């Protein structure tokens, strides 16, 4: 299969790769670039574990062809912490015990980040809506909802 050149920004650093045409972004990130924070759950766009942020929008990396990402700005959970300090969402997931097996956590955090980027003080219903594309088997969702609300509160306190 023909290789195609792909260039994009991943968590602030430039990436340039020759990748098989037809490769998904999920596969490229995990197996080519080595960022394993997006998880492959269903590979059909229904579980949300592979969620990443592309140009500010929440996207499913398992359904995104990497060729369509030329010039894009992509964020994954592995790029969230700065100088060893966890992002407020990561901190809140830890503090509210919102993760057990951890497989859904990166996707949940990306979905929550897009919500908080657009809606800094979301209602409970807005949090539920934002997380509704992500499946969790362990937590029963309530701790995750609480984590997102907690992160929103800590953000607004820091801003004040």
């Amino acid at each position, binding site marked *: 299969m023909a290789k195609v050149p792909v260039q994009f920004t991943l968590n602030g650093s430039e990436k340039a790769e020759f990748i098989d045409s037809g490769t998904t972004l999920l596969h490229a990130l995990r197996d080519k670039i080595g960022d394993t924070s997006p998880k492959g759950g*269903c590979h*059909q766009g*229904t*579980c949300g574990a592979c969620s990443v942020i592309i140009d500010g929008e929440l996207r499913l990396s398992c359904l995104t062809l990497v060729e369509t990402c030329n010039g894009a700005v992509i964020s994954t959970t592995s790029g969230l912490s700065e100088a060893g300090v966890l992002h407020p969402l990561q901190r809140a997931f830890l503090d509210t*015990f919102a*993760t*057990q*097996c*951890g497989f859904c956590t990166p996707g949940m955090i990306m979905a929550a980040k897009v919500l908080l980027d657009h809606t800094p003080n979301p209602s409970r219903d807005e*949090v*539920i*809506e934002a*997380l*509704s594309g992500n*499946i969790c*088997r*362990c*937590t*029963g*969702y*309530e*701790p*995750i*909802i609480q984590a997102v609300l907690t992160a929103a509160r800590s953000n607004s306190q820091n801003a004040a």
Partner: protein
Amino acid sequence: MAIRRGRGVAAINYPTGMNLGGDPTQALVHSTPTGNFMVTLSSVDLGQGMKQIMAQICAETIGVPTDRVVVDTADTDTGPHCMGTFASRGTHRAGNAVIQAAREARQVMLEVAAEELEVNASDLETDGQGNILVKGAPQKSISIFDVALSAHFKRGRSISGRGMFLIPRSYPEKETGAMKPSTCYAHACTVAEVEVDDETGEVTVLTVKNVFEIGRALNPKMVEQQLVGGSWMGISHALYETTEPYYPNRDHGGTDFNQYLMPGPGDLAETEIIVLERPSADGPYGAKGPGEMCANPQIPAVANAVFDAVGVRIDTLPITPERILRALKAQAAN
């Protein structure tokens, strides 16, 4: 046709592990040259927090802070044998094995400290902060760091221990068939409130109130986390989850996890969790296994609540709208 409300209660006893064929777990503990401790297990952490609990149990037994313990569950080929993480047995079985291994390691540690301090090992105690003191004369002390260095480089001792926890196999009595499937039981009781639409058969769980008796909660936040998730899972089992078709035709069955129904974040019942701690006689520091039992009492509680609401007994899971409507139809026909 109306929305009808009902309330149901259920209580369960749940065994910790299984001793139908014997139920062993092995653990090894050893110190590093600088007085940190390694716990080696083949028991696997599936996300329930076994590594954290084993670190706490080892630290408590040896007398060091939890952050001085590393738990290695890397490889079931090379680690000491474990029957596995199932039957809610991880904390109970592996925890007991870790206590035994850690006690043996602690004994060697105290013997080396005794040689360094020129006292009897039986006169020593740990302060839980990484030091070994002479009982009644705490000014005479040595750090575990120095004890480990001495053991490794001066005295040629391995500060290590072996643990093997085995509940012997229980054989049924010939006459009665009576046997002892478990030595340790957790308990739970749930009250569920539901609304049933007797036109569509749809069930909405309004509230779930759970009381769990789980022995001693070795890590209360992690116990709560597992119980909250388990309560949701119980509702999911009661009303949604099946690999069979919802309707008789196989073509209507789920073909993969995309069509395997579970309640999402918008479908949560108001949930209450109360934890009762009655330390078990043979559990590590009194623990029992809360793992699976926490997802059980919601199922009969919801079935009973449906009966209370619309007067039909559904005895096949999940309790789907179709099953309720068929039962209502049969009830009306009688």
